């Protein structure tokens, strides 16, 4: 009896550990996407609804380069990053820049429009049939506990890449001139302008970085979950926004923490509560966070001036 309980307990622990690792892996991808939201929200003070769809564009870019044109995976990844960066800058210039002084309602509706535009453009170009994505990761898998737990290369890649990005981005923002300009613009756009910072180019840079990160997230996401459709980016995008809010919007470490928590909640919820309700649980987290601590784990309070 005791032996049975012990073996059952061990199995349970192994399964839990496996889910946890998967959750952290998915969460790392969310974290990379959440960074894009957080940067843009912090600096342009807008919710870039189309951010999730840039991920999808990144996925298609890699797919096209590798499958259709037969490029190597490294070249394809580089291509995707360039495509998304250019796309991000273009979106900002064409759709958001004219609305810099408009109400947040107009900006949000425009962003939804851009998101819808990207999704349906992709649908016209790549059609409805899902594309099967070839993983761009070639890291060997790691076996633990005599093969009871296998960590796939994609999992390792997602976790490593997200750590590198968070560290790199923090260094960039705190220790370079362009990074500090971004901080200044996020504090006070007008004051930054008066101090001689080029606000327009700083905002462009922010979109470029965010979209480049989205391309990376797209590759990681499609390598782990290899079906690619025109709405591939939508749900992960919204969940990553939840992660950004959870961690405290505007905060880089917050995005990382929020992303991983959301990923773990989603995978554990899927495994232990209900597969159909996993998404609902993630959204429930968002609602709880906003009710209890709207500024998130690491966010700061902003007062409205009267």
């Amino acid at each position, binding site marked *: 009896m005791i032996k049975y309980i012990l073996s059952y307990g061990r199995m349970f622990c192994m399964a839990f550990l496996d889910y946890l690792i998967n959750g952290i892996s998915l969460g790392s991808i969310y974290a990379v996407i959440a960074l894009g939201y957080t940067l843009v929200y912090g600096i342009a003070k807008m*919710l870039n609804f189309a951010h999730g769809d840039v991920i999808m564009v990144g996925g298609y870019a890699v797919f096209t380069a590798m499958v259709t044109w037969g490029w190597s995976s490294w070249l394809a990844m580089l291509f995707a990053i360039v495509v998304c960066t250019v796309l991000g800058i273009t979106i900002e210039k064409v759709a958001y820049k*004219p*609305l810099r002084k408009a109400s947040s*309602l107009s900006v949000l*509706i*425009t962003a939804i429009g851009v998101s*819808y535009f990207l*999704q349906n453009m992709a649908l016209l170009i790549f059609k409805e049939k899902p594309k099967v994505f070839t993983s761009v990761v070639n890291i060997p898998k790691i076996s633990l506990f005599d093969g009871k737990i296998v960590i796939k290369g994609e999992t390792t890649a997602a976790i490593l890449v997200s750590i590198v990005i968070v560290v790199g981005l923090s260094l960039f923002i705190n220790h370079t001139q362009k990074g500090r300009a971004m901080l200044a613009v996020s504090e006070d756009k007008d004051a930054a302008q008066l101090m001689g910072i080029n606000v327009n180019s700083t905002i462009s840079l922010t979109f470029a970085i965010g979209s480049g990160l989205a391309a990376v997230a797209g590759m990681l996401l499609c390598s782990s979950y290899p079906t690619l459709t025109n709405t591939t980016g939508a749900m992960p995008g919204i969940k990553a926004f939840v992660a950004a809010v959870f961690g405290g919007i505007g905060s880089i470490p917050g995005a990382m923490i929020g992303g991983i928590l959301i990923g773990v909640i989603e995978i554990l919820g899927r495994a232990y509560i209900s597969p159909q309700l996993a998404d609902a649980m993630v*959204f429930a987290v*968002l609602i709880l966070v906003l009710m209890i601590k709207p500024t998130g784990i690491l966010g700061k309070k902003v007062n409205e001036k009267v």
Partner: protein
Amino acid sequence: MKKKLNPQTRKSFITYGLLLIVFIAVEILLKTGSISSMLQGLLVPICVYSILAVSLNLTVGILGELSLGQAGFMCVGAYASAIFSNLVKDSITQPVLRFTLAIFIGGIVAAIFGILIGIPVLRLRGDYLAIVTLAFGEIIKNVFAALYIGYDSAGLHISLKSQGDLGLKPDGKMIINGALGIGGTPNDSTFEIAFVILFISVIIIYNFIHSRTGRAVMSIRDNRIAAESVGLNITKYKLITFALTAFLAGVAGVLYSHNFYSLQASKFDYNLSILVLVFVVLGGIGNIRGSIIAAAVLTLLPELLRSINNYRMLFYAVILIVMMICTSNETIRTFFIRNFQKLKGLIIKNKSGSETVKEAE
């Protein structure tokens, strides 16, 4: 002195008049059999989308907040009423009575959801409110898609797992079958009923806007801090508006669910909320008549011009972006206003003077 209607009242009466004219025209065409069956099938959906659009316009245009949960409220209304109609379809055989009850049930249940969601959410503003309503809409859709309800001699059985989990007796019947949704709902929606509901919805909305409550809501939209300073309870008025929006969306859901034999929760996804938003934006934010026209035109157009069907969604996306940039960017807006006034000046050369002051009551 002859009493003149004030501009607001005049505006609403023009809308009522136009609606009636269209209704009579459609009825005549129906009687003479000059409407294709394909178009006939669109009549109820047009009313449904119009109700959704005018009710969303209440939140977007009058309250000034973006809600992306319209499909969720519609889903609640559709399901609540379909469950009701399925349960009573053998005991209440009078379709109009049954449908009237269903409409109230769908609307009220949706309004209750609206209030329950609104209480925690309406403290938030702008982007957060939009994303949370979107989240709620998705939760509602997911929960309904995972819901199994059946009944037998022992009563109602509810499960979130599977049909087998219900443990129905052999005489039992399924009402909601998870992702397969609801089947067998009586087809009580007719164009006439749908039109009457639309007409009443429009009256409710106009009357709401031009009342003490509507004024309070618009003042909150224009300047929240000033509205507080004159003693307005912000949360209360936001909640009332939100509940009314949810109620009407729920009613639209009732019309929708009783128009089709079967119904799946997956129909009420995020894309539907966006579609309704497109109607509101194209018709003009805050413009009730515009919402109805946009809903009707954008529902008819893809059906009439099949060739553009593939580009329909892309077209919607472009509408959102272009409309926003044209109405919110100072430079572009001034350009439009200047050129539009030139045009207007050419058409009505002889009319002059400030109309607004003259036509006040």
